[in-house]
């Protein structure tokens, strides 16, 4: 529906939000460390990282609850330095929802509009529109304590959207919902963002959430951005081992570069008898360099019969564990070195004759372009 949307690839495009060399210190602790980042209008942008990586601080600086120690943040043409939260065209949906307990659902949604001094009928119209958007028309007069977790989340969303902010900030928006509701709400958020043509900035520690919703993801660690890219790029071309391990499951095989042949890297590793062949032409490596090879579990093939003599990237081991997930089966394969590989296989047919069993000797192979080389 919007795959051609990629303003970040256009060098002439002007970002809506610009962090320039922003640092935030709390006493001795550095929460955000010389960070620069551009976010474009209409983007669904995710800040992803483990807790304590600085993503929430970054968002709070955008909302105006924290001031950067160094650097500047601009929104459109406005330098946000010194602008208090109540004067920023930015609204936030809080992780705890922060609904006002002494106000009904409609009063909560109307709160921001009242601060703008809109006429009463306009406020009523907008509140009605928001209630329809989040499908809570029937609960308008309820109080937050009378709502379920999912309903509260919707009220929080409606309240934050009511003022039609230039940027909507969402702090772990789905964190408090159960799995099923979370999945549904992910798609709803995407639809709402698309319909309202708004810029969403989401903070999350849940990589699945980020992958599903975001146009681009910024992976943060220790106050820095490690990689900013589309979900596909983050998953398939992670820049560092941290990203490869943080986003999705990955098998890491350590080794040393032996050389390059026909544009393919040869990597010697104790895990395999024959050096591995990896097709990752963008990496610049030198012989003898220590590297990590990252292969996603679904890109590995597990088989019981020995592959042919021409086969490349063959690892041998025995089945250590089998996890049946319904749609997938996960095999944990133990190599002679003691490493455990994780290999997944889609259960495409309902019945498999003579399936691979525990403790069986198996061969795990993967294509040269299935792997990524990460410089150590």
């Amino acid at each position: 529906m919007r795959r051609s949307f990629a303003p970040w690839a256009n060098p002439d495009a002007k970002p809506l939000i610009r962090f320039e060399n922003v640092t935030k210190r709390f006493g001795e602790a550095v929460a955000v460390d010389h960070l620069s980042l551009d976010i474009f209008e209409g983007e669904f942008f995710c800040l992803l990282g483990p807790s304590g990586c600085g993503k929430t601080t970054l968002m709070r600086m955008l909302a105006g609850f924290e001031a950067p120690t160094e650097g500047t943040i601009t929104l459109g043409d406005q330098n946000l330095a010194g602008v208090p939260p109540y004067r920023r065209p930015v609204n936030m949906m809080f992780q705890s929802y922060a609904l006002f307990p002494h106000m009904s659902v409609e009063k909560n949604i109307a709160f921001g509009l009242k601060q703008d001094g809109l006429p009463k009928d306009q406020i009523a119209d907008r509140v009605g529109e928001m209630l329809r958007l989040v499908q809570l028309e029937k609960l308008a007069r309820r109080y937050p304590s009378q709502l379920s977790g999912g309903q509260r989340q919707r009220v929080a969303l409606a309240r934050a959207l009511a003022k039609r902010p230039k940027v909507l900030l969402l702090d772990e928006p789905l964190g408090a919902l159960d799995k099923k509701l979370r999945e549904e709400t992910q798609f709803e958020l995407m639809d709402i963002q698309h319909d309202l043509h708004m810029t969403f900035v989401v903070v999350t520690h849940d990589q699945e959430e980020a992958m599903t919703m975001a146009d681009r993801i910024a992976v943060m660690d220790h106050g820095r951005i490690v990689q900013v890219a589309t979900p596909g790029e983050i998953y398939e071309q992670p820049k560092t081992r941290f990203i490869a391990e943080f986003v999705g499951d990955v098998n890491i095989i350590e080794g040393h570069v032996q050389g390059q042949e026909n544009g393919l890297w040869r990597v010697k590793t104790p895990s395999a008898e024959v050096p591995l062949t990896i097709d990752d032409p963008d990496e610049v490596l030198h012989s003898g360099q220590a590297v990590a090879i990252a292969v996603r579990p679904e890109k590995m093939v597990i088989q019981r019969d020995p592959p042919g003599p021409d086969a490349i990237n063959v690892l041998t081991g025995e089945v250590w564990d089998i996890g049946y997930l319904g749609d997938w089966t996960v095999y944990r394969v133990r190599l002679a070195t003691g490493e455990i590989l994780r290999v997944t296989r889609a259960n495409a047919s309902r019945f498999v004759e003579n399936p691979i069993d525990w403790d069986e000797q198996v061969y795990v192979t993967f294509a040269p372009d299935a792997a990524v080389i990460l410089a150590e």
Partner: protein
Amino acid sequence: MMERSFTRRLAAGLVPAVPYLWLGVLFLVPFLIVLKISLSDPAVSQPPYKPVFEWGDMAAFFGDLDLENFALLTEDDLYFRATLSSVRIAAISTALLLLVGFPIAYGMARAPERYRGLLVAAIILPFWTSFLIRIYAWVAILKPEGLLNQALMGAGLIAEPLDILNTETAVYIGIVYAYLPFMVLPLYATLEKMDDTLLEAALDLGSTPWRSFWTITVPLAMPGIIAGSLLCFIPAVGEFVIPDLLGGSETLMIGRQLWSEFFSNRDWPLASAVAILLLVILVVPIVIYRDVEARRVEVRP
């Protein structure tokens, strides 16, 4: 088996009865006695009223009771003025207590968590000295040659000593000082529970800090505001010691009137009528509070 279930049932019945028993013996019975005295006539005897209750001629006993004393209360406007003045002084004192107590409670609730216990202890600390001594100390501070006037004159702020002692101002100072913990503690209890992110949410939605205070903090602190105000207002209306020690002879309060009827005039029946009147005045705000509270609970289960 039977016996055990009987004792158990007895215990289950007695536990809720304890507060009723307490109230019955220590409130209801004395109240009925006071009510009875208020309906009697003064007499130069021991006790100083008649009729005295005796088993026997019930009809004559009840026949001697009348509303004369209450009629007297309405005839002499002294009691009306004293009541009005008491309510006024108590209301102004309560407003002043809110004004002084709210910032203190707010500051305590915002203080780092490890200091909060200490601050609460500090608020309660004055209770460790006798109430009377604390009020007498204010006499020493406020009198014309007292500490306050000496300090102000020493600082060159005033040339003549201020007349504070024996005025209504001194009564306000005394009440605010003595009742402050009763205002601060309930306020602190509600403010401390308040979620800071609610204020952030209000700011985020475009509300200035000042407006957020009035639209979020104050409504959410309302249970504490009401509880603290009642805890201060009710005893302040009947206050006797503070107006007697700090207020001048012209400071009219119903508590003082009550005292002088009992001990100066030895008119126990009239004094009892004043006591009943005071009780009725104080029941009104309590009933209102209970009503408000019930409605609040209904709306927000």
